[in-house]
């Protein structure tokens, strides 16, 4: 895919498709496939707005390679102890902010609803994605994805990626 040959509408379409498939993968609990949305040398970070706006680095999750994403999922499946739950992402305001040297800067708002085994659904995490997206053959991938969350009081714990 040659990004600079795409019209603004085509670019928007492809970015929305990517975002949609990304959250669908998590919500459907196909987490083993989740790292494939990223390039090998990606940055993935979940950080509170409280820290991000002060320029402080402490993140809930910070990975700087696809290998670390794989490790997170292997850990979630085999190592960590947490209550069963499902996510439902709601996306909005998907905006393309620029295209520079093959890298799309995009952002969107997200809301993660969480449902535990008692069946109650809670607003778990609200925030904004800041994305760097590149073409990898025919598909788009995240070279960078930062989820900046407003909900800085995390309920219980955070194990499933956002």
């Amino acid at each position: 895919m040659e990004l600079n040959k795409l019209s603004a509408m085509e670019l928007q379409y492809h970015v929305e498709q990517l975002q949609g498939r990304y959250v669908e993968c998590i919500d459907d609990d196909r987490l083993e496939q989740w790292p494939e949305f990223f390039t090998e040398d990606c940055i993935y970070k979940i950080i509170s707005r409280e820290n991000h706006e002060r320029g402080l680095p402490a993140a809930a999750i910070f990975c700087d390679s696809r290998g670390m994403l794989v490790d997170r999922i292997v850990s979630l499946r085999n190592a960590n102890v947490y209550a069963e739950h499902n996510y439902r992402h709601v996306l909005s305001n998907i905006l393309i902010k620029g295209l520079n040297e093959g890298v799309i800067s995009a952002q969107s708002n997200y809301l993660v609803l969480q449902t535990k085994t008692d069946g109650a659904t809670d607003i778990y995490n609200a925030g904004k994605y800041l994305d760097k997206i590149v073409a990898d053959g025919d598909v788009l991938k995240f070279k960078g994805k930062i989820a900046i969350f407003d909900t800085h009081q995390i309920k219980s714990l955070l194990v499933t990626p956002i």
Partner: protein
Amino acid sequence: MNAVIDTTNGSLYWPIDDEAGHVPYGVFTDARIYEVEQERIFRGDNWSFIGLTAEIPDPGDFKATYIGDTPVIVTRDREGGINVMTNRCAHRGALVCRSARGNVDELECVYHQWKYDMQGKLIGVPFRRGLGGRGGMPEGFRMEQHGLDRLRVDTVGHLIFATFSDKVEPLKDYLGAVIVRHIERICHSPIRVLGDERQLVQGNWKLYAENTRDPYHASLLHLFHTTFGLYRSTQKGGSWMDGKKRHTVLTASQGTDEGNTEEYDGLRTFNAEFTLRDPSLLAGRKEFNDGVTLVILTTFPNLVLQQIANTLAVRQTVTKGPGQFELVWTQFGYEDDDEEMQNIRNKQGNLIGPAGLISMEDGEAVEIVHEAIIRDQEESSYIGMGGGKAEDTEHLVTESAVIGFWEYYRKTMHIEAEAS
């Protein structure tokens, strides 16, 4: 022998025996006990942790936080002094600081704009002498009698503590030599705050106090600890308390149990198959010459200071009723950390906090206990690993510091043992 907790409305029996510690489940769930804890523990004769000096480095800096559930403010004044006041206006009780942190010339209540200096002294009252001869404060109104309520404040290393009590001993005596030495070991040079994380746990705050004094669980609950040797009960280490057994320091040294871990064979948390695709997560650097790679230091009632590999953090417990508390994690490094060390700390931040590959499980442990003990309040736990006594140990196969916590808890709550 039993102890009796006398709540205003009934009592709870606390079994006491020599073999093991017991805690009646009612102390975790009873709202009346929570009320007594606020008065006798958080507002009583104990020092509570409220922040790091590096969070308020400059004159005019403030941070709003809590002791138990009482809102307080910590400030840096013009002379560089640290002050702690209740965050409640002396006029009609409004919150004075409504932001979590900031820098101001003076503290101003929005309701009727009473102004206080950074030490809590009242310096401004609008319309104090009335308007055009009408209104105004009474004759006898004295500015100096209407400041913010001030708390005693003191520091050890970079940690700030405060107390409502004028009776409690000075901070260093309260903490004791062992705890002070370990705080100063970590606070050996100026620090830089790396950020906060906040975790809302659905359980009683004392379940977390137990958890952080318990080296028994650490290699059994946390696979990351055991499999990667960050912590194992087979390592060299121990559990030490202050003279009154209210504070604890647990230490362990990585690399002291190689070839000696067969007791872990077959346990869920020891999984040799589990390897990291990207091992850079655990590629740390040796920081302390004593070889100690893990320190979990707790001070009664609300602080954990930790060193896990190259992560450094304080965790402050803020109570929110008997069934809920907030755990505020503040990570830090040293001001003179080089770039590589900054990267190590940022990456190892994955181990701790609400999403920590190690620490997330403690939130879950607290919640599954709290959920299960909601009834049968007269039933109690059994705390016996290591011999069931509140003693220092030079090993990590123990729950002794958990028993120490409860012995002091009964004292500070005025729950006396009596023959039954």
